[in-house]
């Protein structure tokens, strides 16, 4: 069965520190993978996506993610966090069919 796991419910980092948000997936083949960000009271905005090719993908707002097939992971990273990055982050996958599966989200808090 397809699934997405985000093991960290909450993460707190200091402004300027690096960030890594974890995402693990379960799927028999290579899925299409996404990271979304949700600011309070807003909808979900796409940060980046992986379909195939280069396993390191760049997104908006200085985020990047690396697809690791051997670890079934698609972790999101940012070298230096800004206070405006405080939000909830969702990892998602689909297999090309109708199913679009989300993790439960990681809420990021940024300390000044």
């Amino acid at each position: 069965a397809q699934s997405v796991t985000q093991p960290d419910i909450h993460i707190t980092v200091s402004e300027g520190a690096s960030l890594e948000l974890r995402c693990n997936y379960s799927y028999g083949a290579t899925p299409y993978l996404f990271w979304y960000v949700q600011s309070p009271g807003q909808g979900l905005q796409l940060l980046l996506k992986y379909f195939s090719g280069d396993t390191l993908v760049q997104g908006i707002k200085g985020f990047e993610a690396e697809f690791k097939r051997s670890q079934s992971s698609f972790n999101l990273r940012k070298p230096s966090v800004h206070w405006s990055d405080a939000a909830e982050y969702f990892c998602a996958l689909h297999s090309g069919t109708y199913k679009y599966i989300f993790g439960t989200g990681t809420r990021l808090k940024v300390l000044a």
Partner: protein
Amino acid sequence: NAGVTQTPKFRILKIGQSMTLQCTQDMNHNYMYWYRQDPGMGLKLIYYSVGAGITDKGEVPNGYNVSRSTTEDFPLRLELAAPSQTSVYFCASRLGAEEAFFGQGTRLTVV
């Protein structure tokens, strides 16, 4: 393009009332989805559609109905509202294998 538009943004319903959450997209997307988001639970799929005239249940369809008479519109109907339906509802659309685009959400409270 306006993207995905949801109305209303906020609504308070009394138990037993009915309402329709509207969702329109102007991107000619074939897939459309309704999710509900509860704190700490991520997004749960209520219903989805793969094209006009075709809809199917997701994970949590009970208490809801949908229709898809056109490519653009995918309304979600709540019949006999219950407190358990208090949630934030998101509509999304997608074209083929591409990413999903989301509306701004409808915050519904049932009292």
